[in-house]
């Protein structure tokens, strides 16, 4: 588990490890080694940091069981091997078990990425029997109050029970906690909770700003002082539990001066399928203007991956503008995140403005500066009026294709 999670806070299989180099060697693209099926947008939670597109309620009907199984078969034939089952909340699908069974028979390593809501002992038993390899459980915070507030529901105790089931069924205990201004100061308590639950891996994934998290960015971005305290706390804890727990701290990229190698480059290793069958070169790609995303109802996976204009759009370097085009680091970071470039600069071909070589870098530093002021002015305050919770009714009201209304 080196790398970043594909958890509910997004971050991706960015180089889900050692895959990137092999996959990007010159010439033809490698296979879609990482397949993520977002089985449904339905979710009992209403997290303010969800990366799902804000207009999810305006997308088409969910694929049926047979469609998902066809996708699994076609992608496996190309070489897909790591499978993420996500959403929304994947447990909301009552055909999760047959999907897992088919994936197992095909030879996938199957990761269920879940809030735990909907998990029962009967279900975990069936999923184990079907061949599920791993469960990543998300937690919003260490305290019931904040967990329930941030997900706008009462779920803390239920999640604790699911953590027990995960251990009981002999799964590696992997906990994902999305960090932001409102909970990052609790990182010590979060880690103690994780230890008490018997977690072997903890992913402290700072929020990345897409979808609902983008809408709420001004309230979620931590200050640099918060971030540094949290990292120091994490490091002390890491030393104490060395050998028993592995802890990954994913820094929010707004605090970096070089962008993340998003998806190891679009069209390199990652293939996501949205609930309605839309094929995505990254989780958030639906926001990118002019990208004609193919759908698995109309095309097979081979055609989508190798031949579709959308998946070829950001392969190679021909699309890059300056300063990326002549930058020696372009082969390492591929210009960063296309969605972040679009959200912050209005042009998906620009350098990710996280990079301090970007002429738009001030948009990132200004957002951080506003976070500093807000954190100083009203720590944790006034949030209920301001935050937008992920919600079906609000989503219906979002103008399709206009994810960038705020900030």
């Amino acid at each position, binding site marked *: *588990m*080196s*790398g970043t*999670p*594909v958890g509910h806070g997004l971050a991706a*299989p960015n180089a*889900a*490890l*050692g*895959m990137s180099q*092999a996959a990007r060697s010159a010439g033809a693209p490698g*296979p879609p*080694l990482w397949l993520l099926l977002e089985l449904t947008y339905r979710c009992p939670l209403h997290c303010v940091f969800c990366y799902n597109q804000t207009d999810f309620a305006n997308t088409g009907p969910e694929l049926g069981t047979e469609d998902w199984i066809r996708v699994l078969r076609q992608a496996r034939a*190309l*070489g897909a*091997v*790591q499978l*993420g089952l996500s959403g929304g909340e994947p447990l909301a699908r009552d055909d999760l078990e047959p999907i897992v069974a088919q994936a197992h028979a095909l*030879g996938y*390593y199957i*990761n269920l990425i879940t809030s735990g809501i909907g998990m029962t002992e009967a279900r975990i038993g069936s999923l184990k029997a079907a061949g599920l*390899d*791993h469960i*990543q459980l998300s937690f919003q915070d260490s305290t019931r109050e904040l967990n329930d507030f941030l997900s706008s529901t009462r779920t803390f105790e239920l999640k604790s029970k699911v953590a027990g089931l995960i251990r009981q069924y002999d799964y*590696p205990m*992997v906990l994902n906690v999305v960090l932001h201004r409102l909970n990052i100061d609790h990182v010590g308590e979060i880690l103690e909770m994780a230890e008490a639950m018997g977690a072997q*891996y903890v992913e402290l994934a700072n929020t990345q700003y897409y979808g609902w998290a983008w809408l709420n960015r001004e309230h979620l971005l931590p200050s640099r002082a918060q971030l540094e305290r949290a990292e120091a706390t994490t490091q002390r804890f890491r030393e104490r539990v060395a050998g028993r727990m592995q802890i990954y701290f994913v820094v929010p990229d707004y605090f970096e001066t070089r962008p993340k190698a998003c998806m190891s480059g679009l069209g390199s290793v990652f293939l996501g399928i949205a609930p309605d069958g839309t094929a995505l070169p990254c989780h958030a790609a639906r926001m990118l203007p002019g990208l004609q995303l193919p759908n698995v109802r109309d095309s097979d996976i081979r055609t989508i991956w190798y031949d579709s204009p959308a998946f070829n759009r950001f392969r190679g370097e021909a699309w890059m503008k300056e300063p990326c085009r002549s930058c020696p680091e372009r082969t390492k970071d591929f210009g960063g995140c296309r969605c972040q470039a679009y959200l912050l600069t209005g042009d998906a071909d620009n350098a990710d403005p996280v990079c301090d070589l970007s002429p738009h870098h001030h948009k990132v530093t200004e957002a951080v500066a506003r976070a500093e002021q807000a954190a100083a002015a009203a720590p944790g305050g006034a949030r209920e009026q301001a935050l937008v919770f992920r919600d079906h009714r609000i989503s219906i009201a979002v103008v399709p294709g206009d994810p960038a209304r705020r900030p």
Partner: protein
Amino acid sequence: MSDVPGTAKPAVAHGMRLQWEPAQEAHVLLYPEGMVRLNSSAGAILSRCDGVRTLTDIVTDLERTYSLTGLTGDVTAFVALALEKHWLELRE
């Protein structure tokens, strides 16, 4: 480094899965949200670590299969590394 005894019985660690991937023409180790692509030597060694055979058995088998001698040092060093990385564990 090479302190793994010849009687040790290494096995692919709990929670890890080793399999051959035709698309990558390689053995890979799979684990939660991750994958290590193994080179052919690493694949040949790990695919023999079944928790039943001893390290000495594995070396003998590799030397016979590839018509080589003197592999003990290299194989032991790799097994030690794989233990350190938690790819392998020792069985009683």
